[in-house]
C-alpha cells in the first residue's frame, strides 16, 4: 500500500479545493460580481429570457454554477498534479481574488481610466488578507511539491523504489506545510505590527509620511537582495564555465 503517497495527494487536493472555495467566495463578495450579476439580470429582462423569476434566485443559482465549474476545474488540475496545472489553478484563483483585493487600494484606478465606479470593500481587511495568504501559500506549497515530485520521478527512473520515493515526498510535503504555516504566522504578525510601527516611525521621523519610510526601506531591501542574487548567479555561473573549460579533454 502506498499510503504515504495517497496521503500527500489528499493534502494536495484538499489545498487546491480549499484555496479554490476561498477564491470563489472572495469573488462573490466583490464589486465585480455585483456588477456582472446586475448586468446579466438586465439582459435577461430586456430580451425576455428571464426564466428565473426574480433577481434573488439568480443570486443563488449563478454562484452555484460558477462554484461547481471552478471546483471541477480545480479537482481536475489537482489530480494531474503537474506544475503547469498548478500554475493554471493559481491564475484562476488570483483572478477571482483580485476584484475584492483591488477594493482596498488607495488609488482608484477605475476613476483614472474614466470609469465612474467606487471600489468599495464588502468584507473586513483581515478576512481578505487571510484569504489571499491562503491562496498564495497553497499555491506555493503545491508548486514546490509538484516540482519536487518531478525531480523524484527522475530518481524513480534511476531505479529507486516507490516506497523510498513516497517517504521522501511525504516528508517534503510535511516540511513544506509546516514552513508555510510558520510563514503565514510571520506575515499575519507583521500585518498587525505595521500600524504600530507606522505610528512610531511617524513620530520618530518628524511627521514624514510613514508610507514613504516603509516603501523606501522595503524597496532598498528588495533591490539589495535582488542584486545579491543576480551577482551570485552570475559569479557561480562564471566559475562553473571556467571549471568546465579547465577540465581535461
Amino acid at each position: 500500500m502506498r499510503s504515504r503517497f495517497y496521503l500527500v495527494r489528499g493534502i494536495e487536493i484538499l489545498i487546491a479545493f480549499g484555496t479554490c472555495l476561498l477564491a470563489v467566495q472572495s469573488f462573490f463578495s466583490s464589486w465585480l460580481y455585483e456588477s456582472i450579476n446586475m448586468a446579466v439580470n438586465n439582459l435577461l429582462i430586456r430580451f425576455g429570457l428571464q426564466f428565473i423569476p426574480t433577481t434573488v434566485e439568480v443570486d443563488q443559482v449563478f454562484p452555484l454554477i460558477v462554484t461547481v465549474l471552478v471546483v471541477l476545474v480545480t479537482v481536475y488540475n489537482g489530480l494531474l498534479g503537474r506544475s503547469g496545472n498548478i500554475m493554471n489553478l493559481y491564475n484562476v484563483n488570483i483572478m477571482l481574488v483580485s476584484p475584492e483585493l483591488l477594493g482596498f487600494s488607495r488609488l482608484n484606478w477605475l476613476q483614472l481610466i474614466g470609469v465612474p465606479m467606487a471600489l468599495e470593500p464588502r468584507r473586513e481587511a483581515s478576512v481578505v488578507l487571510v484569504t489571499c495568504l491562503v491562496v498564495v501559500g497553497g499555491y506555493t506549497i503545491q508548486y514546490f511539491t509538484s516540482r519536487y515530485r518531478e525531480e523524484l520521478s527522475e530518481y524513480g527512473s534511476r531505479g529507486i523504489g516507490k516506497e523510498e520515493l513516497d517517504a521522501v515526498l511525504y516528508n517534503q510535503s510535511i516540511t513544506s506545510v509546516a514552513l508555510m504555516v510558520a510563514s503565514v504566522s510571520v506575515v499575519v504578525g507583521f500585518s498587525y505590527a505595521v500600524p504600530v510601527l507606522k505610528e512610531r516611525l511617524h513620530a520618530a521621523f518628524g511627521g514624514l509620511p510613514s508610507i514613504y519610510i516603509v516603501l523606501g526601506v522595503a524597496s532598498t531591501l528588495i533591490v539589495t537582495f535582488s542584486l545579491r542574487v543576480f551577482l551570485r548567479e552570475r559569479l557561480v555561473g562564471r566559475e562553473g564555465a571556467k571549471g568546465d573549460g579547465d577540465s581535461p579533454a
Partner: protein
Amino acid sequence: MKGRVFSQSSLRLLVGAVSFITTGMFLGNMLFIYMGVLPIVYVLLGLAIPNPGAPEVAQPAETSTLWVDQDVSVRRPISVKGGMGHVLVGETLPPEFELIEGSNIRLLWKGAGDLDTELSYTIRCTRRGVYAFDELRWESGHSLGMTSTELGSSEVDQTLLVRPQPFHIRRVRQQKTFSKFIMPSEAHIKMGIPTTEYKEIREYSFGDSYRHINWKATSRVASLGKPPMVNSYEMEGMKVVWIFLDTSREMALGTNVKNGFEYGVQAVLGLAQFYLSRNCRVGFSLYDDNKQTVNLRRVSRTGGLGALPDISPLGGASGEGDLHLYETGDFLIPDSGKRQLHKISEKLLEAELYGGVYNLKQSIQRCRGHIIGTNPLFVIVTSINERAVTKLSEGLGEVRRYIRLSRKANPSALIVHVSGYGITAQGEDEEAASQIITLENRALLRSMRGQGAQVIHWDPSTQHFSDVLLSQVGRR
C-alpha cells in the same frame, strides 16, 4: 562542494513576490504587499535550512576474496549529519556484477536529527578479476528544492578479488579402477624416496615396509581373508607439468561472461591444483596462435633467453607496451606447492582473451631453458578447429623435441579441447548446428591423437569438467 545556487523554482517564486509588492506599492494596497512578502518569508525560512551534509561511510574490510559466481553481501554503514532534505547514495557496480538482492542505490530522507542507516545489497560476480570499489556517490538535495542539488562522492576503499572456481579433481580410490588420466612420465617410477605426501591405501605387497601398514584398515578386511592394507606415499621425483592456455579468438565463443576462455581458465586452475597436489612441479604459460611469428633466434643472440624481441609481437614497433608485457612475464617457471598455485591463480586473474604474446611453438621455445632435461608433461587447453589445427600441430612438433618416449609410448601431451559451440547455441536449430560442428571436428581431434597427444573433448554446456576426467577412469 560548490556554493548554493537558487533553484529555478525559488527564483520564479521570488519574481512573483516582487511583482506583487510592486503592484501593492503602485496602488497603495498593503494586502498586495503582504501577499508578496509571504513567498519571500517562505523562501528565506527555507534557505535557513541547509542541504544535508556529505554522507560519511564507515570503511569496510579492504580486500575480500571470493569465488566466481559466489554471492557476497555488501554493507555500507552511512551517517549523515546536519541539514535537512533528501540524500541519494549509490555505488557503481562493474558490469560483471549481478545484483541479487537489495539495491546499490538508495534515496534517504534526512530529517532534523542525524541519520544513521546503511546501504546493503547482495551481488554475484560472474567473472574473475580484481574489482575496486573506491567511491560512494551521493546527491544531496534541499528539503524543498529551493537550492540546486549538491553532488559528491565519499571515499570507500574496498577491493574484491574474484578468483576462478577450480574444478576439484579427486583421485579415484577404488582398487579395481585405474585412471587413464596421464601423469608425467617420472610419476610412474616405483623406486625412489617416499615423501610424506599420502597417495592411497592398497594391499600389502612384498617389500613394503611394516611401518606403512594401516592397522585400522587391515582389521576391517582381516575377516575377509585379505592381506594387510598399507598406506602408500608419493615418491620424490622431478615430475614437471607445463600447462599452456590458449588466449586466441578460437576461445572467445560464448558470451562475455561464459565463454570458452573462462571455462579454460577454470580447467587450468583445476588441473594445476591436481598436479600440484601430486607433488608435480607445474609451469604455466599463455599463448595465442593468431599472433604473428617473432624472430626469437635474433633475440637470443642479442639478449639471451627471454630478452625483449626486436619485432613487436602485436605487429607494431617495439615500445613501452612490449616492455610491459615482458616485465609482467607471460609464463611461470615450474614450481611446486601452494605458493605456485597462488601464483598461477594470480596469473589467471589477470589473463584476458588475446592476452598471449606468442604462439604455442614460440611459447614452448621461450620456456626451453626450463624444459630441457625434465621430460615434462605438456597440457594444452585450447579449442581445436580447422583454423587452429596447423599451428597446434607445429606446437606438438615442438613438444616432441623435449619428450623422451617410453616403451609404453605414453602420450606426449594432453590437449583439453574446450568446445565453445554448445555455449553459444540457443534454441534447437543452433544446438543441432553445434552438434554437427562438433562431429565435424572429431576428425581433427583424431589427427591430434595421431600426433601422440591425448585429447579430452569437453563441452562445458553439457558436461562438468570432473565428469570428463572421470570418463578417463577404467577398470582393471
